[in-house]
């Protein structure tokens, strides 16, 4: 994964919120006519049949674009995970993306409901297919949400634990009471809830800062950017991939320290972070050294402005 600073993470999360807003707008402004109270695909078809075809096509077209923006947002979500959790990070990202690929397809197929509304047999088959796409979106979304909640509760992310309540799964459960809202609130809130909850999720995540509040100081987070911050005595972990620092102190057990010294990891030498994670890989004096997290955490460096 390439380096992402908290600022760019925020940008990604805002793009995700924009994607959710775009899909919401597609639903509300382009698809729906008035008077629908049954929010299932079959129930919405009669109301959509009265909408101009151009509006429907435009609404459907917005689906894939919104999915792309959503994916950018999920990238930002994945970067909320601390370093050393790369597999979890990728799982969360890929599952969310997979869900939203189906989500985009689901959204894009809604115009067919209007086009086939006149033929009950075709309409039923179209609605069945759209329901299947919804299933394709829901299952990975639920899995990704569960994984993200697990990560939040176990402290694998920069989020406070309460953030677990603002993740898609708990927010999705709020849809049930919204179904009882009266018109005209029903359609914009209950009908658009699946997108609204993501706007809430992305914006809540965008407010999260790395633990010490300083951009890029997140224990060597891939989402950190220590290379632009100069300060004495920072942990080697705080170096982002490609970041260069000058070793200040090495305080490991004697045998480890001797080995590190023989490999060039000595105070005064420059070191570059090549791979963060539970085991780090650094480059020093033309040597690539793999070292465990616990040893890397005991090496302090002075970050430089250089990066490669």
């Amino acid at each position: 994964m390439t380096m992402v600073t908290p600022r760019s993470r925020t940008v990604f999360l805002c793009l995700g919120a924009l994607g959710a807003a775009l899909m919401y707008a597609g639903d509300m402004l382009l698809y729906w006519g008035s008077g629908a109270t049954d929010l299932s695909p079959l129930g919405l078809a009669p109301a959509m049949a009265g909408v101009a075809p151009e509006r429907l096509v435009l609404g459907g077209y917005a689906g894939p674009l919104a999915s792309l923006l959503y994916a950018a947002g999920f990238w930002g979500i994945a970067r909320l995970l601390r370093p050393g959790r790369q597999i979890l990070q990728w799982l969360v990202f890929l599952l969310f993306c997979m869900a939203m690929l189906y989500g985009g397809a689901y959204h894009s197929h809604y115009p067919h409901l209007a086009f086939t509304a006149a033929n009950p047999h075709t309409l039923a088959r179209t609605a069945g297919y759209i329901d299947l796409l919804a299933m394709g979106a829901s299952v990975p979304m639920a899995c990704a949400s569960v994984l993200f909640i697990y990560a939040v509760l176990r402290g694998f992310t920069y989020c406070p634990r309460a953030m677990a309540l603002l993740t898609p799964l708990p927010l999705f459960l709020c849809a049930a009471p919204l179904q009882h809202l009266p018109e005209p609130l029903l359609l914009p809130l209950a009908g658009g809830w699946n997108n609204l909850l993501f706007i809430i999720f992305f914006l809540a995540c965008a407010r999260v800062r790395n633990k010490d509040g300083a951009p890029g100081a997140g224990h060597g987070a891939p989402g950190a950017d220590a290379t632009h911050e100069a300060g004495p005595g920072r942990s080697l972990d705080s170096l982002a991939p490609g970041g260069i620092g000058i070793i200040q102190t090495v305080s490991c057990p004697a045998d480890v320290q001797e080995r590190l010294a023989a490999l060039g990891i000595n105070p005064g030498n420059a070191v570059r972070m090549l791979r963060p994670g539970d085991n780090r890989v650094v480059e020093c004096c033309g040597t690539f050294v793999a070292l465990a997290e616990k040893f890397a955490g005991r090496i302090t460096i002075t970050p430089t402005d250089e990066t490669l």
Partner: protein
Amino acid sequence: MISIAESLVAVAGQPNTGKSTIFSALTGVHQEVGNWPGKTVEKKQARAPLGQGGYHVVDLPGSYSLHAHSPEERIAVEYLLHTAPDITVVVASALSPERTLAYALEVMALERPMVLALNMTDLAEKNGIHLDAKAIAAKLGVPVVALSAICRKDADPLREAVRQALHSQPQPGRLPVAVLQNLPQPAAAAATESLRQLQEQHNLAEPAALALIWRSMSGEGESEARLRELAGSLVAPLLTTEARQQFDAARRDWIAQLTGRKSRDALTRQSTTAVWDRWFLHPVAGPCIMAAILLLALILGFGVGFPLAYKTGEALSLVTPYIEDLNSYGLHLITAMCLGVWRGVRSVFAMLPFVAVFYTVFAILDDVGYMARAAFLMDRAMRRLGLNGKAFVPLLFSIPCNISGIVGCRTIDDPRQRLLTLLVIPLVPCTAKIIVMVTLSAWLFTPAVAILVVLGLLTLNMLVLAGVCLLAGKMMPAPVRESGLLMELPHFHRPNVLTISRYVSRNIMAFIKKASTLIVAFSAVLWFLSYYPSANVEQSLLGQMGKMLQPLGDLMGADWRLLTSLLASGVSKEALMATLGVLYDTGTGTLAETLRVSVSHASALAFMCAQSLFFPCIPATGILYSEARSFTLITAVVAYSLILPFALAIMIYQAARLVS
């Protein structure tokens, strides 16, 4: 003065600097060469060609410093400290000159005559590192040869430098006194004063006094007690942590001046290795690539090696009629004996292509520098078993032959981890076990089922390995020191055909040697036991011994012949097929047909499970003991490799019977 032919030249250096290649270049002996730290795990000796003087050359295992952390390092360090070779060829890597030259200075401080080989200059040039060998030689006062040892021509100047150094009166190099002068005060004053007093009070010449101070300040070589014994209280002010840190900094600055680059300059451009590592060490792509590589190795092993092995077996069968022809000369006993021995030897030689394919794949991975990456990637999984990533490479090298893996454990510096790895290596199915597994399943099951059976058995092996590892980890005393991954990842380089072919041929020759000695002897004994007293296998000594085990065989569905073959595999895994060949030789059909008729699927499954987990072969057990020097470990290996196979085989057989 001793003649050059009696001189001793030691090749030393940090791991992965190319010592073995230089040893091969000096001697012409094909030393095993690899691109992962710790390839040479014992010192090896050979003589240089007579034309170059015929001197003795010792190839030492790599050591990162003069403090030993692992058994292989201990061999090198003890040799350097307690033996005085006429010349020490210190191999430094031009790719990482800072640390390898620091090592060279430590060896120089032992006051040994030295030739410095600056290896891998071709790769260094590609990475923008330009070192001036003449300037380094002038500063250090020793011959310095810049070379790329894998190019044959490049080795000529080194051979010449060693020869000249042996002809002249070899002198130790000049330690740079400037390092002491550049120390901050008061360390500089203390060092200068100690230098003066050592010369005056102990009548030491300046180089000897400087070497003693150097060893005191670097903390390498002798212990502090020994240093105090040598120099009294004169070096006491130099033994503090602060003084040593200042010395390290001064030495680093001096080397930076010598090489013309600072450690920061070394990071100004990205090496090819770093670019490749983006993919090979990627948290997601890395394991996928590794899985693909290992899968490819298996596909090559089975897809190429197995048909080749089959063809080899067929080709070797062509000899059988000629042996049978001996009957026509009335040599019945000799014919029977030769046939018995030939069957055993043929079954072993037929495995050769299979083994060769595995060795070739591993040699390529090793040579390009991938093995250390595999160890890195596997660290997380290995930690769950109580091991670390370093244990992965010996475990992987156990696949061609367990002996390679057992010897490779010397690279693991943590004694507890080393013992744990040694304990479970016999559970890694070696090629001989895999061949038996694949051959029997191909004979006894349909192709689709055979694949599932082999995969199932391999999975079972891995599960048992994990279980034994976890259980043993809990039973062993807790680790006394903090353990964690710390290893060098070598630079990637293109595969060298010569190195790979040497590695493969060396291992194949070892295999042939084993086949032509141990297996021939075993086949002869086996033939004798199966022939006497009445030339009838069932009534022979072997048959009678096997029948004694029948009660155990009944539980796992194996008749006496299968059980006898299983026990024979304790001598050598390849002996199993040889024994089956002898015991099932009905004279009417092939072994495959005979087995298909006489062994049920449930029995076959149970038997294959037992053989895959059974006792390691005798050579492997011997080497296991010599490496571990632990009677407890050997007892544990014998215990689990006798109890587990039979227990699991009985369970599998009974379960299979219930299901069917």
